[in-house]
């Protein structure tokens, strides 16, 4: 479609474009009429034959173009391979010393470099715009939907770019080849009036493109990576919560072994300490010195328990000669003594070497101090 210098388009050209092929001219006229009616296009001059886009429409379309220029790195690779192909042609033209071919190739190389630069720039703008939309959170998307969107940006548009624009990537390799070819062209055609100058400019564009592509990639990844990492963490948390709730829904109480993975202290303090000093410190009582102990104060004298003398027992037994029931005899002889004293004495006498004893054949019982004793009597045969 031929464009006038003013940027307008003739009616014939517009109709040709809109018709898209033979037999559709009527439809094209209708389409043109609709575009004019909706103010998408307007005549340059009233009644004239030229059409143009109003400024506001042009700006919107440019914005859409930028926004929609989110293309995969494969599209960039296609441009780079086009460039590589032209570089080959340039090298061959330089070797063949074909100045005319070199002059024909140089603008094409310039355009291709421009296309790659535009691609990188508009891709960066598109990525940044997408990230801004996600951050604004005004679209009602859930966390999972946002994560899928940012993961798509990361996996399809950002990460693959890294390998392309890297120092060892395809773009840098092709630009290096191009620069080499241009240096050789400059040398081979140093007397040509325009080749050296064009080649020098193109070398500068190569350097600029290499820097710009890397900068665009870094800018894109610096927008995407933090949000990607954040949404990824958020998604992991959300999935954990959802999975735990699902488990709980299915299994009920005790749904997961929390007691094993999250033990929580819930001690009481009583009975935990062996020393008063430690307990006092840990329980905020204050400093306690355990070395000094004050004796309990007493206003009355507590009589000691009477003790049964061993000698007295043997003296009484010797007078008696023998005794058929040592335990009952002790309770009778030492009725004033406490029960435990009598029992301790009996216990000691059972193994005393001065007494020769024998158990009775039949058990017996008696009551003393409100206690009934069922036992086999121990008979004292001899006191030595």
């Amino acid at each position, binding site marked *: 479609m031929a464009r006038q210098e003013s940027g307008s388009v003739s009616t014939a050209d517009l109709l040709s474009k809109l018709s898209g092929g033979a037999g559709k001219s009527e439809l094209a006229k209708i389409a043109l009429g609709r575009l004019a009616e909706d103010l998408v296009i307007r005549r340059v001059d009233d009644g004239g034959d030229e059409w143009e886009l109003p400024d506001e429409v042009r700006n919107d379309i440019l914005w859409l173009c930028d926004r929609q220029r989110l293309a995969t790195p494969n599209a960039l690779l296609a441009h780079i391979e086009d460039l590589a192909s032209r570089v080959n042609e340039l090298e061959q033209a330089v070797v063949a010393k074909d100045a005319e071919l070199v002059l024909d190739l140089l603008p094409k190389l310039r355009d291709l470099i421009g296309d790659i630069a535009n691609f990188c720039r508009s891709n960066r703008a598109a990525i940044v715009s997408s990230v801004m939309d996600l951050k604004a959170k005004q679209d009602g998307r*859930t966390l999972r939907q946002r994560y899928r969107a940012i993961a798509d940006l990361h996996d399809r548009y950002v990460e693959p770019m890294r390998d392309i624009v890297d120092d060892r990537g395809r773009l840098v390799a092709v630009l290096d080849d191009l620069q080499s070819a241009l240096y050789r062209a400059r040398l081979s055609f140093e007397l040509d009036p325009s080749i050296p100058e064009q080649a020098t400019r193109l070398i500068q564009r190569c350097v600029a493109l290499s820097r710009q592509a890397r900068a665009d990639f870094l800018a894109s990844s610096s927008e995407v990576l933090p949000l990607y990492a954040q949404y990824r963490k958020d998604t992991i*948390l959300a999935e954990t919560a959802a999975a735990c709730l699902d488990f709980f829904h299915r299994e009920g109480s005790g749904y*997961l072994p929390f*007691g094993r993975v*999250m033990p*929580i202290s819930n001690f*009481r303090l009583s009975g*935990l300490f062996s020393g008063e*000093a430690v307990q006092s*410190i840990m329980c905020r009582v204050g400093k306690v010195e355990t070395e000094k102990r004050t004796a309990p104060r007493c206003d009355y004298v507590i009589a000691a328990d009477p003790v049964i003398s061993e000698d007295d027992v043997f003296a009484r037994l010797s007078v008696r000669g023998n005794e058929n029931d040592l335990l009952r005899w002790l309770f009778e002889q030492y009725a004033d003594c406490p029960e435990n004293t009598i029992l301790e004495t009996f216990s000691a006498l059972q193994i005393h070497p001065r007494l020769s004893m024998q158990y009775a054949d039949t058990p017996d019982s008696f009551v003393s101090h409100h206690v009934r004793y069922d036992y086999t009597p121990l008979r004292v045969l001899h006191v030595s």
Partner: protein
Amino acid sequence: MSANYTFPPLLSEAFASLTRGRHISSDDGEVFYAIQNNTTAYESIFTALGFSLRTHSRGFYFFEREGLPSEAIEQFSIFVFIMIDWMADAGISITDEILTREFVVSELPHYKTDRYSSYMARCKLPTDSQLRLLLKAMRRAGFLRADNELISFRFLPPIYRIIEAGQSALKLSKEEGTPAAAPALADGDNDSDSPALLDDTFDDEVAP
């Protein structure tokens, strides 16, 4: 212990809090900084007494004990996971806001949908008043900071212990093949030595 031993500061306050199951974070003020600045001393004293002081990477301290299963822990977990699930559906960034957002109690999602209400009923928190008891228990344990009237609250870093426990428990459960139920509480475990965290007769330590 030697009679000349110098104890680290606020030892008794720290011990009292930690033995009651509290997770001490920077929100606890001086006692947190006392532990932070004397961690080795605290660890060695508590180890000698038979306690295990743990430092979490998110900057809080707690006693770890081979646990009796606790119904309260399960309730904490359901409460937190409902919060996270709701935040995800609302498109709210969890990592950004879980520790910074002020949640209004009356606007909590736990009884706003049938699904969430059923979870709450199933973990024995069918009413708003039960939820408030839970919030008080979580406040005592150091998982959140809330005003006395429980109008709003903010989660504290120890909440990540619950989240990570959920991840560990899921992993453990999958490794073992089937969801492993926590052992049921035996009668003897309901004695005074194992107070329920929802016990309202506990000292209610209000966050400063």
